[in-house]
């Protein structure tokens, strides 16, 4: 009997993933705007490795990969993470408007950290509650609050004189150096949120910690547990406040000491839905959302806006000369580098999109980052240009904007789930920046203290994260 094997046994010789453990999620860092080669199909179509989405390279340099997805896989099935990614502007807009076909999911967006929030309701239930929260952040109630926002900003900047920490503020030879994050942007939005919600001042430090932990605990992150704990602490704290407000309402006051309106928690305590008062849990969850959504995003918007403007001197000069351009700069910043990557949806039915069959109930990630860089909508999307003629920068509309060649950016989303804090964050970023500009003479980035890109010289691109620290020099006197 012959023992000859009809096939060569080396077909089984394939190295195991464990032989090179480091190779699992490691991708080389590429120059900005270039993608790692992940292989090609015989017809030349580039392949897309879902592991890249978890890599450091992707965090700092995401846009060439999103372009790859938009061009070749407008609906990409990530088999590793059981997710479908939708990356084109038009598709995402359609899905956002169709909240029946693409509904939100329980805790899908916050992995339990934010709790049961508005983000996770759909249809009638969502519409019924939407205005409970949103109405306090727009229109007249917002205009009433602008002086309070300005007062907070001025107060924080005046406090620079009293900060004794060279990592935050320092002065020498007529030049001041400030780390805009720690000195201003990290806390400013949180203070505004606290004030608008009606939280006592002494709770603000805890708040800062809670919202940081909750933000970093979202998704399948390593710090998920920390996020859950922070959320629990916030909940315990807010529960006490809510109970107190139910008994005794509190008010917001203007500078002259006249009451403007009741604070938001008080108003929520008095609100009825279907004849019932809101439960403490409902109020807490949505406060968690306001804390999370109102803090991180606005912080990122302020830092990113200054980081980008100061790297484009002529645009910064234009803003200095024309106060109204801050609005445009704000929107272009959010288009170019927003802090919110996208929103998850579940498809209610089996759907076929761009030839990809998506079974009902699948997780579909709408990638706002990618929509904002869709060259089908925005010319030369990787360029920061506040003068661009294809971006709508007026009042944020739930219906979106698509006229005379201008489109809304997607940082606030569009449709039923449009960000209710869009207006207040706009006001915070713009009013805050105007006041900053008065104080900072001839501001410029202190390049020496900023993190560098892989070449060791140029400034690091913003990528998916907002700028963590922004060191600025300015002239004293």
């Amino acid at each position: 009997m012959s023992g000859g094997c009809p096939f060569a046994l080396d077909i089984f010789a394939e190295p195991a993933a464990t032989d090179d453990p480091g190779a699992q999620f490691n991708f080389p860092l590429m120059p900005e705007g270039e993608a790692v080669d992940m292989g090609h199909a015989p017809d030349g179509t580039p392949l897309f490795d879902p592991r890249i989405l978890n890599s450091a390279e992707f965090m700092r340099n995401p846009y060439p990969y999103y372009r790859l997805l938009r061009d070749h896989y407008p609906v990409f099935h990530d088999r590793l993470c059981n997710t479908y990614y939708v990356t084109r502007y038009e598709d995402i807009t359609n899905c956002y408007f169709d909240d029946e076909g693409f509904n939100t999911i329980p805790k899908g967006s916050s992995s339990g950290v934010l709790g049961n929030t508005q983000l996770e309701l759909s249809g009638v239930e969502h519409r019924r509650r939407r205005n409970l929260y949103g109405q306090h952040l727009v229109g007249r109630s917002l205009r009433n609050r602008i002086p309070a926002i300005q007062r907070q900003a001025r107060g924080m900047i005046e406090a620079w004189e009293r900060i004794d920490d060279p990592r935050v503020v320092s002065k020498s030879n007529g030049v001041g150096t400030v780390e805009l994050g720690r000195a201003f942007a990290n806390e400013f939005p949180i203070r505004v949120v606290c004030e608008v919600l009606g939280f006592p001042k002494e709770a603000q430090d805890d708040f800062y910690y809670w919202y940081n932990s909750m933000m970093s605990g979202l998704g399948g992150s390593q710090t998920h547990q920390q996020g859950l704990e922070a959320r629990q602490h916030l909940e315990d704290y807010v529960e006490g406040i809510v109970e107190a407000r139910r008994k005794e309402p509190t008010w917001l006051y203007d500078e002259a000491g006249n009451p403007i309106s009741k604070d938001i928690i008080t108003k929520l305590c008095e609100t009825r839905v279907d004849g019932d008062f809101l439960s403490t849990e409902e109020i807490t969850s949505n406060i968690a959302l306001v804390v999370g959504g109102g803090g991180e995003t606005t912080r990122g918007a302020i830092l990113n806006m200054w980081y980008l403007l100061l790297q484009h001197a002529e645009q910064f000069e234009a803003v200095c000369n024309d106060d109204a351009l801050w609005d445009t700069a704000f929107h272009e910043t959010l288009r170019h580098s927003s802090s919110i990557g996208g929103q998850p949806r579940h498809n209610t039915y089996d759907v076929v999109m761009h030839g990809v069959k998506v079974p009902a109930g699948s997780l579909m990630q709408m990638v706002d980052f990618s929509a904002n860089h869709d060259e089908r909508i925005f010319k030369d999307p990787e360029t920061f240009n506040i003068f661009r003629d294809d971006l709508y920068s007026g009042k944020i509309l739930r219906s979106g904007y698509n006229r005379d060649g201008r489109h809304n950016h997607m940082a606030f989303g569009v449709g039923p789930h449009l960000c209710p804090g869009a207006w207040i964050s706009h006001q915070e970023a713009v009013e805050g920046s105007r006041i900053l500009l008065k104080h900072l003479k001839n501001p410029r980035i202190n390049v020496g203290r900023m993190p560098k890109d892989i070449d060791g010289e140029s400034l690091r691109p913003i990528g998916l994260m907002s700028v963590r620290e922004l060191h600025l020099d300015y002239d004293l006197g």
Partner: protein
Amino acid sequence: MKATEVIGANGVAIPQGTRGSAGFRTYEVHQRERVGQSTEKIKPIQLVSPEFARNPYPFLDILRENYPCFRDWLSNCYWVTRYNDVTSIFTDDANFETRPKRWMLGLDNGGSNLGGEVPVLTAIANGIDGNAARLAEQAVSGFAGRGRADLAIEFAARFALELLLNLLDLPERDADRFAGHYLAMKRGVTWEPRLRQRGLEAAGELERYFEPLLERRRADPGADLVSAIATLDREDGRASARDLVVTLLELDFDTLHGTLANLWLRLLEESGRLQSVRDEPRFLKLAVLETFRHSTPVLQAMRFARHEVERFGRLIPEGGLVVCSAAAGNRDPRIFRNPDEFIVNRKDLCHREARGQYRTDGLATGITVGLGPPSKHPAIPEDRPRSAFAIARDTAVTASAVLLDALDDLQLEPGAEPYPVCRRIGEMHACWRLPVRFRKA
């Protein structure tokens, strides 16, 4: 352009924008899932780590003992790890479904899986039963004269694949080509784009290869699997090469390959085990059953919720992916005493083929997901061949008996390290290196 087209469950397009109740959830439903569950003991990234691929059991222990239904946010799935939970989902076709491998591969060529047709099942059973002993002898004689061998490759892997070749009755000159394409296609059932691409190409190659062969067998059928498919009498016309390729893709040969490799790893690890199966030949079958339990090659199965269901204290949404970990269930101390120990003649393991709910005579069986759930029939129906479970078990016994008879003084190569591993995340957990030395009997 209309970007989306909505197809309902019955295949009819649903007009967009119609307002209905579908898809909306009530707030009360949300309230039932509270934040509470802690996840401090494990990070989801660990479940796709190289450490997990090497030895998944410590991680699965953490899940099973702390988080019976672990919400893995990173991989967007739920892990179910207790024996009774896992088996309940496997046998619950009303609430959960298994998506075919070709969905994962993205093989959208219209072929259908004929693996459930009786003539196909019969051809597989006969082909395997009739040739297992001969092919095992052939494989063993390939290295018996050398005094040393790598059982993982030269015995387990080779035997399983050769069995398949034989089942298809392919000419020897095509063996290399077929084996390469077949393995590439199987490996393509993954999230790795390069492997998937190769898998799709290989499936195309196989289809082209089988087209003329299928015609020849149709004209002149034999007893093999290709002939069985070629001559299949179906309502919707004759089976095509596509159907054959899809059927091959869904066929499970990993279990036999992995079980043989793991069985011999466990037998050689401890000389007492090998001696016990030498002394008592009927123990070989028990050792195979214990391998199914202790070292199941296919670690887990993916099941998708057909609709929103509440299980194990969690609300699993429609379309939710439930990863049923056979490996974790098989080591559940609630079911098996000292579950991490490999005991050849285990008293709390069912020694007959399980029926219905994975149990017979009140005893649990090892979960081997590659072989499907146990038959619901109380006995084997006369007009059907034996189950995949019985075939895999008996084939492993036959082949191992051949090896046992042919070699004396069988032992692990001194200093050599056996290598049980999933070569990639999602692939089977099998011993891929098992160097041994022996004397020819």
